[in-house]
Structure formats: structure tokens, C-alpha cells
């Protein structure tokens, strides 16, 4: 069964350091999302790609966060410098995209702890 792959599963980093997360969506899925989930809360959208283009990054803290999907397939989310408040689960999801919305499938996430 096709899955969204994310790595690493866990990451511990010191504040002010740089950290990066990787996501490989389900093959053929044009839409890719990065979400952040704080413990006890629902996921919040950080950035959405349609193929290689960003369609929504209004909630992405652009002074420290960046995201790219250069060839419209896999994607990288970077934080530099990391702050204590960035500790959370970072989730990647993908969907077929297009005019008719289809369900999004999530990866297992990356649990980030900033110390």
C-alpha cells in the first residue's frame, strides 16, 4: 500500500541550530502539505504545494522556516534557527489534487524537540 514517507521520525536539536525534515509523497500526488501539530491540538497548515509551486504559505513563519519542492515530488522543510517553541510534530500529507478535492494521506510525522 502506498504511503507518505517522512524522515527522520525523531529529532532533538539545540535552540539556534538548523534542522531539516524530508517528505516523499504518494506517487502521482500533485498536492503536498506540511502541517505542525502541538500536543493536544489539531494540525495547523504551514505550507501547501501544488506540484512545485507554493499555493499557500500564509501561516509559515518565513523569518525562520523555509520549504521547497523543487521537482514537484519530494519536499524539504527547514527551520533555522530553531526555537524552543518549535517543539512539535511535523506532519507531511499528500493528495491527488486537481479541481475535485480528494482526501489527504499523512505520513508518520517527525517529532521535533528543541532543547
Amino acid at each position, binding site marked *: 500500500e502506498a504511503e507518505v514517507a517522512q524522515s527522520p521520525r525523531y529529532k532533538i536539536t539545540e535552540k539556534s541550530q538548523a534542522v531539516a525534515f524530508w517528505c516523499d509523497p504518494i506517487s502521482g500526488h500533485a498536492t503536498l*502539505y506540511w502541517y505542525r501539530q502541538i500536543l493536544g491540538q*489539531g494540525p495547523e497548515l504551514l505550507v501547501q504545494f501544488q506540484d512545485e509551486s507554493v*499555493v499557500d504559505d500564509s501561516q509559515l513563519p518565513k523569518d525562520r522556516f523555509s520549504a521547497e519542492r523543487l521537482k514537484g515530488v519530494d519536499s524539504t522543510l527547514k527551520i533555522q534557527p530553531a526555537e524552543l517553541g518549535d517543539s512539535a510534530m511535523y506532519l507531511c500529507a499528500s493528495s491527488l489534487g486537481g479541481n475535485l478535492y480528494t482526501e489527504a494521506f499523512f505520513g508518520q510525522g517527525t517529532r521535533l524537540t528543541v532543547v
Partner: protein
Amino acid sequence: EDQVTQSPEALRLQEGESSSLNCSYTVSGLRGLFWYRQDPGKGPEFLFTLYSAGEEKEKERLKATLTKKESFLHITAPKPEDSATYLCAVHLWVGGSQGNLIFGKGTKLSVKP
């Protein structure tokens, strides 16, 4: 402002005790409503998509329904393995783009044997 509210925040049931979870929304341009299940430390797992009022979907002990203002996830005769956080999300159109998902905070369900 677009908003999704889930209730209750937490629900404790005895095995076999049926109940319902609620997801109410105040959004413009709703294109679909989704239910997900999330186990601790894992990503959300897709359960159902509902597109129009009156629509119903079923899967094993779960049944999802949709009205113009809210959705219910009915759990019939739950088992301990149904324990998880259930997330509701609405899909909105954003201008000419596909739109995005807005999630509620979830309902944490615990089923005791």
C-alpha cells in the same frame, strides 16, 4: 472567521457503550468534511469524506453523518482498540487554488474493557 469545533474534548466509554462525537463548523465555501483517526505519536489516518448535507458513510463500528452546520461520528458498541483521537477537518476553497484543510482540536476517545 472559518472555524471548526469538536466536542467533547475527551470521552470515556465502557466497551459496548455507543456514543457520538460532534464536529461543528462555521465556514464559507465548504467543499468537503473529513474524519481522521490519530493514534499517539502517529500521523492521522483517513476515515471518511462527506461532501453534502444528508450524506452518510460507514466503516465497521463507525458511521459519519453531515448536516449544513455539523457532522457526527457515531460509534456503535466500541471496543478498546477504538481508543484514539478523532480529528475532523473541513476543506475550503481559497481563491482559485485547491484550498486547504482546517482541523479541529480533536476528541480523545478512551474505551475501557
